[in-house]
C-alpha cells in the first residue's frame, strides 16, 4: 500500500465505519431476523426462537392482506408519482415565466406545505374531506355534484389521500425543477422560437431534454417515496376504510412494532427492498437509453 492509499483509507475510515455500523450491520441483522420466527414469545423467552428458513416469506405470500397492501401501494405509486411530479413541473413552469412577479414570495408560499407538520395538516384536511361539512363537498355542491364520502369509501380513500399528499410534497420538486429550468439555454429557446416552434414544441424539444436528468432523479426519488408511504394513511385513515389504504409499510409497522412479530416484519422489509431496487434499476435503464445519465 502506498502512502497515498494509506492516507485515503485513513480519511474514509470514519465514514466507512459509520456506514458499517448504522447501515450494513442493521441490514444484515434484519435479514437474519427475517429467517427466524421472532415474535412476542421470543421476547418472553429466547428458547422460543426458531430458525424457519423461508417460512416467513411463504406465510407472507399466503396472507391476503399483504397482497392487498402491495396492491394499495402500487396504486399509490402509479397515481401518485405522475400527480406529484406533474404538479411540481406545472407549477415550476408557471413560476419560471418571465411575466410572473414576486417569484420568491410564490416559491415560499408553495413550498410551505412541505415543511408543515403532517399531523396538523392531516387534521385540517380531514375536515376538508368531511362528507357533511367539508369545504370540498360544499364546492362540489355548488356545481351540482353529489357529495363524496372521501375518506369513508374504500374506492375514494386512496385518491383523497393522494390529493393531500400531492399538496403536501409538490413544493420540494417544484424548487428542484425551478433550479433545473434556470439552466435551460436561452439561446436555444430563442432559436427555436425564431424557427417557428410553438409552445409545446419548445417544451418537448428544448426544455425537456435539458431537465431530463433532473426529471429522472425526481422520478426515482418519488417512486421510492411512494412505495414507502406510511405517515399519510396512518394519520388520515388508520389504514381504513376496509383496509383500503393499508400500505406495505403500514403492514410492516403493524406486524413489527404493534404486534412485535419482528421476523415477519423483517421479511416484509426485505420484499419491499427488492421491489424498490428492481424499480430503480428499470428507471436507470430508461435513463441510460435517453442518455440522461
Amino acid at each position, binding site marked *: 500500500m502506498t502512502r497515498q492509499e494509506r492516507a485515503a483509507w485513513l480519511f474514509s475510515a470514519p465514514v466507512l465505519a459509520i456506514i458499517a455500523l448504522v447501515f450494513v450491520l442493521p441490514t444484515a441483522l434484519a435479514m437474519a431476523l427475517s429467517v427466524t420466527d421472532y415474535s412476542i*414469545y421470543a421476547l418472553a423467552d429466547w428458547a422460543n426462537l426458531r430458525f424457519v428458513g423461508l417460512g416467513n416469506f411463504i406465510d407472507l405470500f399466503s396472507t391476503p392482506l399483504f397482497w392487498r397492501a402491495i396492491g394499495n401501494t402500487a396504486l399509490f405509486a402509479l397515481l401518485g408519482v405522475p400527480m406529484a411530479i406533474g404538479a411540481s413541473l406545472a407549477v415550476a413552469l408557471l413560476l419560471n415565466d418571465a411575466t410572473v412577479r414576486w417569484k420568491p414570495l410564490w416559491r415560499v408560499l408553495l413550498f410551505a406545505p412541505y415543511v408543515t407538520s403532517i399531523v396538523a395538516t392531516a387534521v385540517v384536511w*380531514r375536515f376538508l374531506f368531511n362528507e357533511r361539512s367539508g369545504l370540498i363537498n360544499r364546492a362540489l355542491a355548488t356545481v351540482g355534484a353529489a357529495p363524496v364520502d372521501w375518506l369513508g369509501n374504500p374506492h375514494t380513500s386512496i385518491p383523497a389521500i393522494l390529493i393531500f399528499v400531492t399538496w403536501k410534497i409538490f413544493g420540494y420538486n417544484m424548487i428542484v425543477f425551478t433550479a433545473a429550468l434556470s439552466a435551460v439555454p436561452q439561446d436555444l429557446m430563442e432559436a427555436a422560437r425564431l424557427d417557428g416552434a410553438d409552445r409545446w414544441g419548445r417544451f418537448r424539444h428544448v426544455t425537456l431534454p435539458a431537465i431530463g436528468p433532473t426529471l429522472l432523479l425526481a422520478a426515482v426519488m418519488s417512486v421510492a417515496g411512494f412505495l414507502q408511504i406510511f405517515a399519510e394513511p396512518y394519520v388520515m385513515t388508520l389504514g*381504513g376504510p376496509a383496509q383500503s389504504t393499508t400500505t406495505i409499510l403500514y403492514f410492516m409497522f403493524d406486524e413489527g412494532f404493534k404486534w412485535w412479530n419482528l421476523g415477519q416484519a423483517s421479511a416484509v422489509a426485505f420484499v419491499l427492498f427488492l421491489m424498490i431496487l428492481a424499480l430503480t434499476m428499470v428507471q436507470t435503464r430508461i435513463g441510460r437509453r435517453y442518455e440522461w445519465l
Partner: protein
Amino acid sequence: MRHDPAMGAQPHDWTRRSALGLLPTLGLAACARSRAPEPLKFWAMSYEGDYSPMLMPAFTAATGIPVDVQSLPATAAHEKLLTAQAGGAMPDVLMLYTGWVQEFATIAAIAPVPSLAMVADLFPGVLDATRVGGRDFAVPWSVAPQVQFYRRDILARAGYPEPAGDWDGWLRMGHAIKRQRPDDFVFMLLLNWPDMLITMLGQTGATMLRDHDTRGNFQTPEAGAAFTYYARIFAEGLAPKALSTEIQDPVAAFAQGYFAIWPTGPTTMLDLHRRAAEIPAERWATARLAGPHDVGAVSGLSTSLCVSASTPRPAEAWALVRHLSSPASELRYQTMIGNLPARLSAWTSPQLGAPILAPFKAQMRFPATAPKVIEWERIKLEIQFAAERVVRNVQTIPQALAGLDTRVDQLLAKRRALVEAGTLA
C-alpha cells in the same frame, strides 16, 4: 515524545474563558449533591395519564418520594410499552388495560403482586382477568363496563322514556327515531372499535376460539347471529359507516343529535360534563346495553396497575400502587374523570349513589370474559376488520367468518406449536 515548550513553560494561568469552561462541571456537581430522591416513573394512558399528577402530591407528602407521570396516548400505548420492555426502559409503575395483563405477564414485563391484602376488597370477577398461572399480576384500578349513553329528548320524542333492553326492541326503537330524524343516525358504532361486536359475540354465546384456544371458531351459528345483527344496524341506515378518524368530535356529534345512542365507557361522563354548554346534563342519561333477549354481560376497558419486573425500587413502586388503588384515591378519581372504583368498599360512598351511575353499578357485576391468549388484542381487531368488510359489502358473512378462521389460525400458529410441544399450558 516531543516536548511542547509553549505548554510546559508557562504555569496555567486562570483566564476568564477557562473559568467559564468549568461552569458545566460545577452544575453537574450541584445536581448530584443537592437533589431529592429520584422520582418514581409512572406511565398511564388517556385521561388516567392526564389526571394522575393530581393524585401524586398526597403520595409525595406522605412518603417523600416524588413521582414523574407520563401520559401515553391510548392508540399508541401498546407498541410503546412493548418497545420499552424490549429496550429495557420500562417505568417503575404502569397502568395496563386489564386485557393486556396476560400478555405483559407472559413476557415477564410485570411483577406478581407481593401481598394478598392488595387484591382484597375488589369487585367479584375483576381478578380473573389479571390472574396468570394462578398468581395475581396486577391490582385492578377501575372497572369500565360499556353502557349506552342516550339522548333523553330524542328518545322521548320517539316515544321511548328509556332505551330498549333487547336486540329486537333496539332496532324497533332505532327505526322509530330514524323516522323522526331521517337525516341523522341513531347508533354510534365506529367501524374500528371492536368492543361492541365482541360484546355481541359474547352475548350470543359464541366461543370464539377452540382446541385449547389455539384455533379460530367463528363459523358457528352464534357468531353468525352476532355478525348478522351487527351488519343489520348499518344496512338499515341506523349507524354511520364511519371510522374514528371520520367522527373527529363525537361529543359534538352527540350534542347535535347526529346519533342518539352511544355505547361507551364511564370516562365519557367527563367529556359530557366538560361540555355541558353544548349538551346540558338533562339531555342525556345512561342505561345498560341491550342483549339478544335481555341485558347481559358486557366487555369494557377496565384498567389495572402493575409494577415493572425490572424496577430497582419494588417496595416504593408497590407503595405507589397501594396509594393509587386506595378507596380514597379511587373516589377522588371518580369525581375527576368518571372512572369507577374497583374497590368494593368505595361503593358504600354516597358519591356513587347518583342515578347516572346506577346502570354502571348493575353492569359491573357482569363482566364478559375474554379468552386468555396473548394474541387476543390482535384477534379482536381482526374480528372487527371482518365485520367492516361485511358492513361495506366487500364480503358476505360466511366468507368473512371463514376468512376470519383462517386468519386467526395463522395468528395462533406459534401458540399452537408451543401448546403441542407442551411448553405452554
